[in-house]
């Protein structure tokens, strides 16, 4: 369903195809959380009182592309998204955006960075304050960023138009919105400051399939018309296949496989990727699986397995995997994987 375009000249930006330059470059990023204080750790005799939610993550995002971060709960995908936007401090590594390193600069630099970058949070109803009207919610970014000269009522209607909601929604409150409408308000809020990059954390979780398509189509249309770049964080592989150009699969905070989405789906190379794809239920009753490829669950981050962290669940584990941590290596088709015995490629 094609929606009418409602762009004002102010918001319209040339819409490039996926460009060659690099908009966002993340290198060797590590996010570390403190689990307990030094005294408690000493009393309990625990050596490592930190967990690393994200380890050694490096990737580039080119303008106009959609990069998907995939992983199970606890794999670090949300931590990575939050670290990029500066909501979670980074322990080491760097985030370079448009040639600058905003997270290492002062507060002013960070604020300027956050005008170019917006985050759509996971639960749209919970992330909207129940006591604020839709107009207040979607124009709040102007106040936060000291742009009061804008006519907020006009801006609110423009933003609602962009996301395909009627202008009289300005006076509604979150409890009067359906799940899909709340999601659209979340998109409108993210679009308020005309960012270049939007990080969408589970943009379709909890939506019915028919509504899920509407939200994804909206994001695709906005990308075409506004030249937006997306990082989409999700566990829904069926969606990733359709909407992303490149993807990375995370396991225990590391990228185990990264590369062009089409290649990863065509021939998954890391056993974990293969297992994740095989775990997707097949909507054809004649193609039922009778075995489960990936057994068990992700180990605790406080007790990282030695060697390859996936070896405890890997169906192809060999002795070397238990002792030696695989390094990232590049395949011919541009994919990067961390596995001693890759399946293909």
């Amino acid at each position, binding site marked *: 369903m094609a929606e009418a375009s409602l762009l004002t000249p102010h918001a319209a930006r040339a819409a490039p195809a996926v460009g060659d330059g690099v908009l966002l470059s993340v290198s060797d990023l590590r996010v570390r959380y403190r689990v307990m204080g030094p005294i408690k750790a000493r009393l309990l005799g625990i050596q490592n009182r930190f967990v690393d939610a994200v380890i050694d993550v490096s990737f580039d995002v080119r303008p106009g592309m959609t990069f998907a971060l995939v992983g199970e709960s606890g794999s670090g995908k949300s931590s990575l998204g939050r670290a990029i936007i500066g909501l979670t401090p980074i322990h080491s590594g760097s985030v370079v955006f448009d040639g600058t390193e905003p997270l290492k600069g002062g507060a002013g630099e960070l604020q300027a960075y956050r005008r170019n970058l917006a985050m759509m949070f996971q639960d749209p109803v919970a992330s909207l304050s129940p006591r604020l009207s839709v107009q207040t919610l979607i124009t709040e970014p102007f106040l936060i960023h000291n742009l009061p000269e804008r006519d907020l009522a006009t801006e609110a209607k423009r933003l609602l138009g962009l996301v395909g909601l009627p202008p009289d929604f300005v006076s509604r409150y979150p409890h009067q919105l359906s799940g899909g409408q709340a999601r659209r308000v979340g998109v409108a809020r993210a679009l308020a400051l005309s960012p270049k990059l939007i990080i969408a954390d589970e943009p379709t979780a909890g939506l019915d399939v028919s509504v899920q398509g509407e939200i994804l*189509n909206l994001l695709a249309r906005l990308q075409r018309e506004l030249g937006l770049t997306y990082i989409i964080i999700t566990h829904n592989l069926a969606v990733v296949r359709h909407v992303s150009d490149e993807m990375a699969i995370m396991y225990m905070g590391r990228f185990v496989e990264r590369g062009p989405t089409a290649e990863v789906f065509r021939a998954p190379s890391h056993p974990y990727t293969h*297992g994740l794809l095989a775990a997707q239920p097949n909507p*054809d009753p004649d193609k039922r699986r009778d075995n489960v490829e990936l057994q068990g669950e992700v180990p605790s981050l406080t007790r990282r397995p030695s060697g390859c962290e996936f070896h405890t669940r890997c169906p192809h584990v060999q002795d070397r995997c238990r002792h030696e941590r695989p390094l990232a290596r590049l395949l011919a088709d541009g994919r990067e994987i961390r596995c001693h015995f890759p399946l293909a490629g």
Partner: protein
Amino acid sequence: MADAAAPLLRIENLSIDFQSSRGPVHALRNVSVDVPRGSIVGLVGESGSGKSTLALATMGLMQNNAVVKGGRILFDDRDLLTLNAAELRSLRGRRISMVFQDPMTALNPVLSIGRQMIDIQYRDRGNTVDKRRKAADLLRRVGIPDPEQRLGQFPNEFSGGMRQRIAIAMGLMGNPELLIADEPTTALDVTMEAQIVHLLRLLRRDFKGSILFISHNLGLIAELCDYVVILYAGEVVEHGTVQDIFHRPRHPYTEALLVCDPARIEQVSRELPTISGDVPNLLNPPSGCVFAPRCPRVFEPCRDRQPGDTALSATQTARCHLLNGGAHG
């Protein structure tokens, strides 16, 4: 015992209203569902279609503002709607049990798993040692390692997938004939979801019970179920075997649901199909076909007259004007 050919659960023309300040919400209207003995029946519908209402009505756990306007819920030929609280209680847990959506809130956080699993055997004779052994045995069957040790642990010490396994073990405790599973995997990751679905399949084989499996995930339904019932805005629009529904859908809503599932779209596309419009307001359901306002193939009679059920084969039935002599295919 009733005769073996009759379905274990037969819901007949069930209508349920919810009282609200703006008048009654007609949440279920003339819904009929059969669960044959030993089968897994999938109940599919979007949010607000009434799937959970149906499950809770079968369990006798309806909210206070729910009113049954008509119909019967026959379990083994007894109408559950005519039973009193004590009679229902004697069925629940023993012959019918339920696994809820959210394993985080289904368990009591301040009691150990063992304590909870022993408590729910309150009807059985025998001492605590035997009950504890039975609890450990069930945990082992749902795939929890070291069950003896883990009985002493509390729900927060288990992962989400483990908690759902425990909830399933508790549901199976009384060896029920009917297990109602209301979206048991929505809170879980895909690898855990695949394991739980596999587990349900093995348990059906071992326990020989029937399962009413509620989900909006078409992949899981195709993977697990024998029969499928499609619910839309409080009405059953189509039902049939899993092959009927996935290979030969006849109702436009069923077709649209299948088309919209991104997992079924072979060709990669940024423009995904959707069902335009919104679910009707059930305070005032449409006078004609309930799907008419969103149907891509709507024609004259749809908006005024309710379609009747058309039997398409021995197993498949759909409720659509296109199917009873409509030449507007």
